[in-house]
């Protein structure tokens, strides 16, 4: 309730019907008392905010906070069982209650939409050009060739360097970053007054994320578009928006100008969100991480837990050979974490598969806990796998949905025939307790668990064999920032308690800084830079590493990116 009061005082004009005309210009978008329910389940409760012309506002929260639902309510794209009540006033017109026919002229023309997942947001069986023509049809331009020209110009404007090729391509022929550029281009083509961007970069690599966000910021200022940005990352929101609205369980926790909410959050939840952003708190787990750092210092002279030496792997793609991993070498001392960092296509995944013995290298050697991995058959590797476990990227697909949690965690023990059934039960319970899950979950199925809980199950499943080495393949990339923080904490305390050695694969450098001891930066199959984490982060040598580091959202708006941010802030404060 306190949050609600604060909100009214700070950011909302009071909603008296007979109030005098405010001195401030009428906001482009005003949301008032918005509640949304799916069936009988209310997911957004009494939310209100306003967004001025040319300004940007971010809705922040974890999954389930209702932020995307609010965006869809504004866009009137709720699923058929969704019901919205309250008021959404766009450009002086109430749009929540009007008919679909009455709202359609606003779609695209006045309100543009940039979706979350570019790969699924364009029709897969139609060319980009055919779909772009739909957006171009919103312009009052009867000549199809001129419309095509406008589309091509817009593609160039959003940084697509071969607009003609893009125009004739099908979606599956383009990368995620290019598709997101296309979608942004289609959204801005009719020059809407409002752009709603629903997690526009969560499916993209960190450097591409920065480029896309830069593009949005630039377009917003050049074209005077208002931006409603939905994100779970407070650092991104703070960097890109003039005002923030923090949501939890469909209720506003805190709202206000970015500067005040970000630097001095008033609500406990906003403070927690801020603390959970790795980029803002590189030393959050310093105490836990230092335990491993000691191993690093004493490691000299002893045999490393993992030794990868001059490994090369070439794939044959369409008759051309593609070097996925080129002369890869690194060692990991026992009890420490080594991070492999790089973007999609950098060879991280191939490196992981080689390390686990799922692929055979063309040359080079790999040894884990004294056992050779390269050149052995799966049958021979069975003994090695007892010491070497994998936690997969996506906990939504890595657990068999028809199995109970108990069966999932217990399976490795049954497979390797370890202990009596009673001992197995105990080890399953112990592993679950180690990752912070209660025994009441044992009989549940994965569908009943949240993403964070599922990833904990996946970790418990790898722990139950008491391995020495766990390979973590982007273990938090499918999870929210705050859920990620919980997983990171579990991983670090497990390492501190059990002396585990981790290979941590990620494209998120901020996260690497929080939990890894040593790091290898991969680019196009090669390691471009490696060393201790603090060293690389404080003093990067290679341009690629520098570019990666510069892509980490810092939460501070770059003055060059957002020239209007400051005057607007001041105008609003008056």
């Amino acid at each position, binding site marked *: 309730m306190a949050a609600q009061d604060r909100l009214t005082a700070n950011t909302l004009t009071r909603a008296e019907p007979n109030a005098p005309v405010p001195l401030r210009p009428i906001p482009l978008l005003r949301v008032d008392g918005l509640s949304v329910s799916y069936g009988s389940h209310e997911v957004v409760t009494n939310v209100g905010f306003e967004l001025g012309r040319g300004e940007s506002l971010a809705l922040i929260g974890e999954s389930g906070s209702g932020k995307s639902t609010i965006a*869809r309510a504004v*866009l009137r*794209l709720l*699923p058929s069982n969704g019901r919205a009540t309250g008021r959404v006033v766009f450009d002086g017109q109430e749009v929540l209650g009007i008919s679909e026919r009455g709202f*359609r*002229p*606003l*779609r*695209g*023309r006045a*309100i*543009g*939409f940039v*979706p*979350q*997942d570019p790969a*699924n*947001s*364009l*029709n*897969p*069986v*139609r060319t980009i050009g*055919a*779909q772009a023509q*739909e*957006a171009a049809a*919103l312009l009052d331009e009867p000549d199809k060739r001129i419309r095509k020209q406008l589309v091509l110009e817009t593609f*160039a404007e959003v*940084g*697509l*360097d*071969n607009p003609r090729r893009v125009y004739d391509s*099908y979606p*599956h*022929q*383009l*990368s*995620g*970053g*290019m598709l997101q*550029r296309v*979608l942004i281009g*289609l959204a801005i083509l009719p020059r809407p007054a409002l752009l709603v961007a629903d997690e526009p970069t969560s499916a993209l690599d960190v450097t*591409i994320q920065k*480029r896309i966000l*830069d*593009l949005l*910021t*630039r377009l917003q200022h050049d074209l005077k578009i208002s931006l409603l940005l939905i994100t779970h990352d407070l650092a991104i929101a703070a960097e890109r928006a003039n005002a923030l609205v923090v949501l939890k369980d469909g209720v506003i926790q805190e709202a206000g100008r970015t500067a005040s909410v970000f630097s001095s959050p008033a609500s406990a939840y906003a403070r927690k969100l801020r603390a959970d952003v790795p980029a803002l708190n590189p030393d959050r787990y310093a105490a836990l991480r230092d335990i491993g750092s000691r191993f690093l210092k004493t490691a000299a002279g002893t045999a490393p837990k993992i030794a990868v030496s001059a490994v090369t792997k070439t794939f044959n*793609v*369409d008759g051309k050979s593609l070097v996925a991993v080129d002369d890869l070498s690194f060692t990991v001392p026992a009890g420490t974490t080594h991070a492999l960092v790089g973007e*999609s*296509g950098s060879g991280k995944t191939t490196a992981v598969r080689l390390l686990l013995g799922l692929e055979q290298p063309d040359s080079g050697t790999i040894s884990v806990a004294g056992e050779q991995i390269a050149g052995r058959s799966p049958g021979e590797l069975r003994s090695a796998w007892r010491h070497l476990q994998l936690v997969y990227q996506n906990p939504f697909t890595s657990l068999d949905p028809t199995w109970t949690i108990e069966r999932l965690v217990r399976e490795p023990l049954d497979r390797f025939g370890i202990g009596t059934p009673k001992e197995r039960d105990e080890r399953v319970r112990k592993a679950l307790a180690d990752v912070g899950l209660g025994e009441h979950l044992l009989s549940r199925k994965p569908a009943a668990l949240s993403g964070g809980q599922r990833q904990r199950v996946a970790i418990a499943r790898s722990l139950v064999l008491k391995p020495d080495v766990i390979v973590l393949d982007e273990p938090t990339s499918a999870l929210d920032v705050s859920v990620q923080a919980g997983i990171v904490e579990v991983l670090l305390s497990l390492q501190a308690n059990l002396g585990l050695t981790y290979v941590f694969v990620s494209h998120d450098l901020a996260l690497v800084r929080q939990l890894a001891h040593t790091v290898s930066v991969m680019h196009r199959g090669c390691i471009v830079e490696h060393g201790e984490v603090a060293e690389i982060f404080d003093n990067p040598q290679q341009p690629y590493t520098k570019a990666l580091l510069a892509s980490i959202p810092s939460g501070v708006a770059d003055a*060059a*990116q957002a020239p209007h941010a400051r005057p607007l802030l001041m105008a609003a404060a008056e």
Partner: protein
Amino acid sequence: MTNAYLSYAAKRLAQAFVVVLLAYVFTFMVVSILPGDPITNVLRDPQNGFTEDEIRQIIAAQGLDQPIPVQLWTSLSHFVAGDFGRSMRSNRPVATLIAEVLPSTLILASAAFAIALLLAVTIGYGTQFLPKRFGQGLLRGFPSLFLSVPNFVIGLVLIHLFGFQLGLFRVIAPDSFWATFFAAVALGVPVSARIAEVLIANLDKESEQEYASVARGRGLTRMRLFARHLLKPSSLPVITVTALAIGELLGGSLITETVFGRTGIGSLVQRSVSTQDLPVLQAVVSLAAVVFVLVNLIADLVYPLLDPRVKLIGGPRARPTTADDGAVATSVAATS
């Protein structure tokens, strides 16, 4: 038209040809293995009054005393050359018999097919966009209803309603426009049910895809969203079902022709079966196989043209560009 597609098409064509030949061989073998010998039965029929010598002469003249593989070879080479032999009953060329009745069946089947497609797409559109209170749920029940009513029942009901009660057509003139139309309806309705079932399931799936939302956000009307975005990806699996449904049209035409008293392939088959007229049966079964294979061949050839994601085996694959590198320079230049 790429090289990959052409070589794919050539392979499919060759496969189709082999399948037709195998179907012919299979039918021939089944007929020769079956107990009873319709040929000697016919010849020995006392009404024909052949003597044993004459019978032997006829059999030798027809090559029927040859071993089965030799007979098969003779018959197959005639078939490939387009010679289907002569009817054992009427002694007229089988090709002529079929040519007499084929147009009627073709008209019926293609009309039924058109009606089936139209009905399925209309039902599909209705299930997506008809307001709930106007019986969206009711429409969803149509396919299972259509499937569970045999088409002769539909035919009899249509004849009774439109023929006898409303007098729209005369039952004794089965080739008039309205009689043909209602026969086609009776034949097309169960086929439309099969197509509609798959179409509805896919429309449901596709309309929940993100791209449908994004397209709606672009201001498309429902009709355009349906016609331009949902229908094409939803009809990809439908093509397969449709090809299979053609088989149902062939089988169904037999019953429908009987119910409506039409002369067609159906009645020809019926007559040939009851009189054990083997050459006619062999030709009709082979013809059915040709139609079936041809329709599936068309489906296979159309599919990659409609879905750009289909990878043709043997041809160079469409490769997604993995890097955003091209855009980097422009973006950096534009934003800094």
